[in-house]
């Protein structure tokens, strides 16, 4: 065939005056069937937008009702957002998402938007999962933390609030069976704030700092900072003598319900996990008895396919107060929750194991400062839109400590990693 082609090539070259491609690219039409919740009529929906993000190229296309949706073949993340007027006169945001939609022909997509529900509870305002480096450039462990915030106008009691980590990685997708992701999240660590119900009030505009190890880390790493004033720490009694946790005398411990490790728990410092808050309405023993999740999946490698079995704990979506998917830009594969909890994801660093991720956290975006002088942060259950990625950690800003691997000192304090706090 190649030789025949060679003979025909001169004719082909001479006859073709088209300056672009050999043939025009095929676009496929997408039809969308929006299945609204029962309490919302189609007439009450306005400002609808469908966003198609091409995963290969990163290009986003937005479509509004009445316009033809036509896209190149490829793999897409599809998001739908609209405003809805409820029967009581209140406004609500409708959202729906479909991940990894393979477009190889014209398609009819069915989306089931959900109305964003305010939980009126604490939110995660910052996750510092990367940690710091010591002066010799090695990763220092123990100064990771998560900050919670009262974004509302009423006092919220933190008692009984559970900090949870996803079992699944956002960088590696498997077909887990049974698939419970639309109804429940799978977790591998549960640490609960102690208290009888009214012991730990968090006023509007106040933070709650949950630290890995609540000590002054500067004694161990001059590039770190002081966490001895944290509100709580997660402490583990390790069964590994070479890997023991430090129990701070100044910081109370979270109540450990479950953790996958026998040594000590740290946040995933490459950013593969999701973190959340949950109000679990049952006792610890009953939860651990009733909520075990056994699942199967298959690992495919050069050596073949290997069926695997594992376990985690399952928490119904209704118990989740907040959820933040973290990932790595270059390695993101999927979000490990139902879209109703979090439609997006946020990150530190571009590539897996990137050294520039250290000293950085993900911080919730500032919307405005309210009349009481408190910051109000964005909370739309879409971490891609709600969080600023790659921010200098807030505790580094407050301490004025080292903010990068080169030893540069942080001189700016911000609300959200971007907006500076005015003196």
């Amino acid at each position, binding site marked *: 065939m190649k030789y025949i082609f060679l003979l025909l090539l001169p004719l082909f070259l001479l006859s073709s005056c088209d*300056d*672009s*491609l050999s043939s025009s690219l095929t676009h496929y039409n997408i039809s969308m069937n929006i299945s609204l919740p029962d309490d919302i009529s189609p007439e009450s929906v306005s400002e609808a937008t469908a966003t198609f993000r091409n995963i290969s190229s*990163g*290009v986003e296309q937005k479509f509004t009702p009445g316009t033809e949706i036509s896209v190149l073949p490829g*793999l897409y993340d599809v998001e739908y957002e609209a405003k809805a007027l409820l029967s009581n006169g209140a406004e609500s945001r409708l959202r729906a998402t479909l991940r990894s939609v393979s477009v190889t022909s014209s398609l009819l997509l069915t989306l089931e938007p959900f109305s964003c529900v305010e939980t009126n509870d604490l939110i995660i305002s910052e996750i510092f999962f990367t940690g710091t480096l010591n002066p010799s450039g*090695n990763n220092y462990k123990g100064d990771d933390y998560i900050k919670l915030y009262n974004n509302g106008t009423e006092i919220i009691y933190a008692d009984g609030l559970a900090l949870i980590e996803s079992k699944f990685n956002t960088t590696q*997708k498997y077909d887990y069976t049974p698939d419970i992701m639309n109804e429940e999240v799978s977790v591998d660590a549960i640490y609960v704030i102690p208290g009888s119900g009214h012991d730990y009030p968090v006023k509007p505009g106040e933070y709650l700092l949950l630290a890995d190890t609540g000590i002054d880390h500067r004694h161990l790493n001059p590039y770190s900072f002081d966490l001895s004033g944290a509100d709580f720490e997660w402490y583990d009694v390790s069964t590994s003598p070479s890997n023991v946790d430090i129990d701070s005398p100044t910081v109370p411990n979270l109540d450990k319900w479950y953790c996958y490790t026998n040594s000590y728990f740290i946040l995933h410092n490459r950013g593969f996990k999701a973190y959340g808050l949950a109000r679990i309405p049952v006792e610890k023993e009953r939860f651990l008895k009733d909520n075990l999740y056994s699942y199967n999946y298959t690992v495919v490698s050069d050596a073949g396919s290997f069926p695997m079995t594992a376990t985690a704990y399952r928490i119904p979506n209704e118990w989740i107060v907040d959820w933040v998917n973290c990932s790595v830009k*270059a390695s993101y594969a999927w979000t490990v929750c139902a879209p109703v909890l979090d439609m997006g994801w946020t990150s530190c660093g571009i*590539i897996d194991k990137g050294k520039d991720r250290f000293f950085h956290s993900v911080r919730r975006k500032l919307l405005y400062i309210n009349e009481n002088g408190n910051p109000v942060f964005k909370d739309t259950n879409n971490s891609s839109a709600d969080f600023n990625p790659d921010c200098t950690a807030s505790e580094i800003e407050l301490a004025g400590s080292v903010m990068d691997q080169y030893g540069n000192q942080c001189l700016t304090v911000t609300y959200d990693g971007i907006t500076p706090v005015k003196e």
Partner: protein
Amino acid sequence: MKRPYLLLALVTPLILSASGNDSILIRMNSHVDGLRRFISETWQNPALKYFSEDEPFSNLSVGLSRRNDSEIITPEYGDGSHSAGFNAESFIPAGKNSAVWGNAGYSTGSTRNVQWCESSSPELIYPYFSADEAGGNLKDEHYKFSGGYAGRKNSIVWGATLGYSATHHFRDVDPRPRNITGELTLSGGIAYSISADYMVGASMNWMKYKQSNDIKFVSETHDLPIYQLTGLGTHYNRFAGASKSSDFSGNRFGATLNLFPLRSGVLVNISVSRFSFDKTLRDLNKLPIASAWHNALTVNAGYKHISDKVTYSVTGQFDAYRRHGSENIFGDAVSGSYPQIGSLEMYADNYYRALLQGFASIRQNNQTYSMTLRSGYSHRKQFYAEPEQWALVEGLENMADFSVRSFLGQHWYGIADLSFAIFSPTEKDINLQPSTSPEALAGSVETGLRHSTVTRCATSVSLTAARAISEKYAIGIGGSATLTNYSGTAHSNLYNISINFYF
């Protein structure tokens, strides 16, 4: 470092067997004949190469080369380079009806400040480079070896060549690419005498190309994402940063048809080729992310006249190529495996050029005066499908070259050459759209395109002097300087110097 000496050892017996009836300076004068270079398209057919030289001639040379640009003109070639190396070439009529030839060389050097390209052979694999935002100086080593044979029996001449070249590009600081390329070329041809004055010929050629491209970071505190570029400042967003090891593999198939006058007459050369290659990411289980094909055509036809005193030739030439690149698209990666769901042709680079060129030389006593004039029109358009963007440039190319070759007494021989070339754009249209690429990449691409669409003037001077140290041997020194000005905005200086041993 043993390999350069091995190459020299392989080619030396061939070279040392060369000796002709004429003195070395006469053979050298014949070898550097301007007409031989002017109709160089003919010699692609190894059977016709039999006629390229009348006398044996060999040259061992050691040389230095240096390029300095005032700013980056083409990002993948940096803003300067230097190299040092040796080259050995020989052509020997072996017996009454056959000829052998060979070439071997080694060079080492460095390209300065390469930007947005950590791959080697950019001219072959563009636009699918692996790249990062740091770039830097790139060291290199080149090895090449080739040989050929042509034989004649009655009206038929046949020939074949085999060649191999390899390069090694690397950097000693982060990011540290280590690229190995290999090119194996094979060609075979035949020519038939249709009259006492004319040969018709045909040949086929094949090249196998391979490149392995590995980028490492050893710094404890810093590394960078690696981008897989896809043309005109775009990149494969999904695999940005994910893969530091890639491979390129390609094949080129080509053919030529020739009408060759042994002395004066009409000459025609038609060559076609198709080069196609794939790029795979080794880190992702040899994921084939892109492929491209490059079809090329050259038609060269004209007339040449050879007499004792005056030689001239007038030819028209048409060159065209079409390079189209496709990006493979993949479905959801489940269990670490990426199913391919399609392939999209996204990039095109279409080019054509029409030239009218003439050559004339006059021999007077011990001097030969030569002139080459060339005038033409070229058109090139690069296109990217979505987001739709393009870069078009059309323009006039004019070139004039003057040279004098002279025997200076019995022992000295000299060549002086002066040439001027100008490219004047008649139309240019660059439309780049914002994409998901880093700003620095878009800026770099824009800079490269800008330099390719401005008026470009090149002035070149070269001088060669040779002294016969016996009837069979001569030594010489040669040097050249080429100054290229890009519409007053940038300039590039290229210098070469070599010491030669002719026999």
